[in-house]
């Protein structure tokens, strides 16, 4: 593979890694607004 091909491959890997990082972090952080159950 020539230099351009390697560069494109590196860019793709970096972008995929960044997206995966953001998705994993968002899922691990989680969070919501929870209503307690009615007691009565």
């Amino acid at each position: 593979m020539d230099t351009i091909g390697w560069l494109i491959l590196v860019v793709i890997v970096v972008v995929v890694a960044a997206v995966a990082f953001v998705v994993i972090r968002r899922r691990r952080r989680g969070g919501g607004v929870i209503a307690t159950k009615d007691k009565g």
Partner: protein
Amino acid sequence: MTASQIRGLPVVTVQGGEDVAEVRDVIYSPEAGRLVGVTLNKRGFLAGRSREVLPAEAIHAVGQHAVMVLDESSLAAPEDAPDDVAHPAMERNVLGDDVLTEGGASLGKVADLVLLVGSSGEVVGYQIDKAGGGRGYIPLPAQLSVSGVALVVPNITEEFVQDDLVGLGAAVDEFRARLGLP
């Protein structure tokens, strides 16, 4: 301020200035109109849920940039915390709930929960994404029932949808008067 502004805030101790946790879930009582507590994440970029929770009575203050506690002992183990906080009903996450009148009309979807700043966690209303577009606010006493799917409100609530938080304050009192609530 809104519940979404509280979520993700660091939990900091007053006595040591230590950053001990991060707010994950905000738990409130629709009946009492109050914040009940928060669940926590550990600190760290990819850290997940913390076992400890923070009941509302252990919160020293909620500010724009941090939730303050006196010290690390304010964080409670699940067995020492109220059940609603230790084991929150995750299926009752109200974000994205349809807001339906008892007559079956949709007012929009729940976007957030509105709390009074500087108080001991009083909840005053909901921020909604209106069915016709744009943001609106409805007072908390409006709800007849709430689940993880829908928020049911009296028919007259449609008259009390406010466009801003300033209007919401006045709407809460007027709404209570109209419904004959204390």
